[in-house]
């Protein structure tokens, strides 16, 4: 994985000391909150419901064990013994003291991490496929390209004060595991007929109060023009994005209002101009970055079979692993969704354990998924049983990936100042209702996502079943959505009808799955059945 050079380290260290001085001035009173607030947000420090919250960037979700161990140590030293992995592949701490924040950033800098641009109206952490560099279905490892974009977007002077926040995802396979089309810019690395690598640009997607699926504005940008084209997309947005209205300021609104054709025309015009300015980094820089992402020293000639005689292990293998491109290896996923647990939360001990296990079993690498789980990308099949046993002993082995138990949930009203309703208790009740393994297995793939407000941090628009918490005169109420998807077949969920109480929404989800089971045909997932039979049978069961 990428290692800082002297410039990276100097930038991060300098930023820590700058923020230390800003924090001191705020506490001493020479810097008012109105002036300090944008500065702390640029360093990932929010003020939330109970305390300050620090969001730490995990570039494209990739971590080494030393970094992961530090995340566990920070949870113990400065927080309350746990961290929350997020849908942006980052980690958040919920109980931070302002006076500790500079020391935390200094600790992070020692392991080449920071919280820069995890908030504010700038380009946020670049996200990617959690199986990058390991899966057989990618045309190339997307991480070097994500890293190039990270370097371009970090401290980019033109794009630090955009109309609104800006999120970019990069993938390199047709199976979209990063919700790419629901980003401000989604980039899919592709090959043309000549076998050359390029980038398909999808621009103007997003969730929030106005969900939109990004249209493809250019199916093939040559890879040596990746940054120049990205710059053109951002420039048009920066020039014409709605700064007068926060709720209409995202690029999706601009693309929608201008129309895809006109936005694309302007981007292409700007792109032609930028090509004359020679802003693209030399390919040698991309090659330098790529050298950090070479394959780990895989063994060859390994047996490619697994002993599945332990039924619990077999269940976990079926649900929580994915094929690796190297024979004898497998991708394994530790679930942060124990039955009745808080989605995405991990204790300091669990975080440190996963660091140790990555060192022992996965060439020192981990990935954070946007579904709030942790991936061990390169595990020898011969080691998989031992890895599972150690995860199992730490309550990290729930066999539920991509099932109704693998719920994405935002922090909701339990932690977030923006939320209108609690998300986590609903997730807990649903996971308990569907806890039995045979029930999960019978239902199969069913992605359920919960947001506690219209901002959609819990991706409810993209859930096969989505739940949106709203405030009904001070009482929590939950709307149900069906038919969303974040994959290659991206679609937006539709609201079923009137909302439900906290317990009522759990019953509604169960009725919904009952309709699916009654109507499904051979091999159909929930989403397939919904798309075939439509909303009517579900509404009948829910409200009839």
């Amino acid at each position, binding site marked *: 994985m990428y290692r800082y050079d002297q410039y990276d380290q100097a930038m991060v260290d300098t930023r820590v000391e700058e923020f230390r001085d800003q924090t001191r001035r*705020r*506490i001493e*009173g020479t810097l008012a*909150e109105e002036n300090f607030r944008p500065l702390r947000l640029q360093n990932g420090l929010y*003020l939330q*419901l*109970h*305390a*300050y919250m620090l969001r730490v960037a995990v570039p494209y979700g990739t971590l080494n064990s030393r970094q992961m161990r530090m995340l566990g140590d920070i949870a113990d030293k400065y927080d*309350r013994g746990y961290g929350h992995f997020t849908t942006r592949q980052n980690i958040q701490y919920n*109980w*931070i*003291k*302002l*006076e500790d924040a500079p020391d935390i950033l200094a600790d992070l800098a020692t392991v080449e991490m920071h919280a820069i641009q995890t908030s504010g109206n700038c380009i946020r952490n670049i996200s990617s496929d959690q199986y990058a560099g390991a899966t057989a279905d990618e045309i190339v490892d997307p991480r070097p390209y994500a890293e190039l974009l990270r370097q371009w977007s970090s401290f980019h002077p033109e794009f630090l004060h955009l109309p609104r926040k800006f999120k970019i995802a990069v993938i390199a396979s047709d199976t979209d595991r990063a919700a790419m089309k629901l980003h401000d810019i989604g980039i899919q690395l592709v090959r043309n007929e000549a076998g050359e690598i390029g980038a398909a640009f999808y621009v103007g997607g997003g969730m929030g109060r106005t969900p939109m699926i990004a249209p493809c504005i250019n199916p093939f940008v040559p890879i040596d023009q990746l940054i120049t084209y990205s710059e053109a997309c951002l420039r048009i947005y920066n020039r014409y994005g709605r700064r007068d209205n926060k709720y209409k300021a995202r690029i999706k609104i601009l693309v929608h209002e201008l129309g895809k054709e006109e936005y694309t025309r302007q981007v292409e015009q700007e792109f032609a101009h930028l090509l004359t300015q020679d802003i693209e980094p030399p390919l040698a820089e991309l090659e330098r970055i790529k050298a950090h992402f070479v394959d780990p020293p895989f063994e060859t000639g390994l047996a490619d079979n697994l002993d599945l005689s332990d039924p619990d292990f077999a269940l976990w293998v079926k649900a929580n692993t994915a094929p690796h491109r190297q024979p004898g290896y497998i991708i394994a996923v530790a679930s942060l969704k124990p039955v009745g647990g*808080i989605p995405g939360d991990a204790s300091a001990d669990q975080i440190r354990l996963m660091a140790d296990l990555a060192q022992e079993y996965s060439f020192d690498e981990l990935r954070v998924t946007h579904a709030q789980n942790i991936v061990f990308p390169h595990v020898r099949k011969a080691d998989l049983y031992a890895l599972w046993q150690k995860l199992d002993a730490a309550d990290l082995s729930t066999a539920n990936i991509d099932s109704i138990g693998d719920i994405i949930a935002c922090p909701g*009203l*339990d*932690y977030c100042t923006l*939320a209108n309703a*609690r998300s*986590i*208790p609903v997730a*807990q009740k649903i996971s308990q209702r569907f806890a039995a393994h045979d029930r999960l297995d019978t239902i199969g793939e069913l992605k359920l996502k919960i947001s506690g407000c219209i901002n959609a941090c819990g991706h409810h628009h993209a859930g096969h079943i989505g739940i949106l918490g709203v405030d009904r005169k*001070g*009482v*929590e109420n939950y709307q149900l959505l069906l038919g969303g998807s974040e994959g290659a077949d991206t679609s937006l969920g539709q609201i079923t009808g009137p909302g439900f109480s906290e317990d009522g929404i759990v019953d509604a989800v169960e009725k919904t799955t009952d309709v699916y089971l009654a109507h499904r045909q051979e091999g159909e997932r929930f989403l397939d059945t919904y798309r075939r039979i439509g909303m009517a049978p579900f509404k009948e069961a829910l409200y009839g």
Partner: protein
Amino acid sequence: MKILTGNDLKTGAVIWWDGEAWSPHVDDAVDVGEHAAEILAREEAARHVNASYAVDAARTAAGVRPAHIKERIRALGPTVRPDLTLKPADPEALNWVI
């Protein structure tokens, strides 16, 4: 009644105006009547509190209870982590919030 809340500047902890200073316990909160803006301006300027605001509440047999669930969660702590709330041993605390 009208009560005042905010976060401690240095620690971020939720605090409530008790008439003379800031308390972590909502039960200590006092009715400030028409004086909310004046008190908040003074206390913010003195850096005793950050992100402060006034909320509606009622004095009940169980103590001061903010009108909205958001402030009740602020007053107690996250409902999903009773161990991290101000009343970790009180089984009735969650009912007070909901």
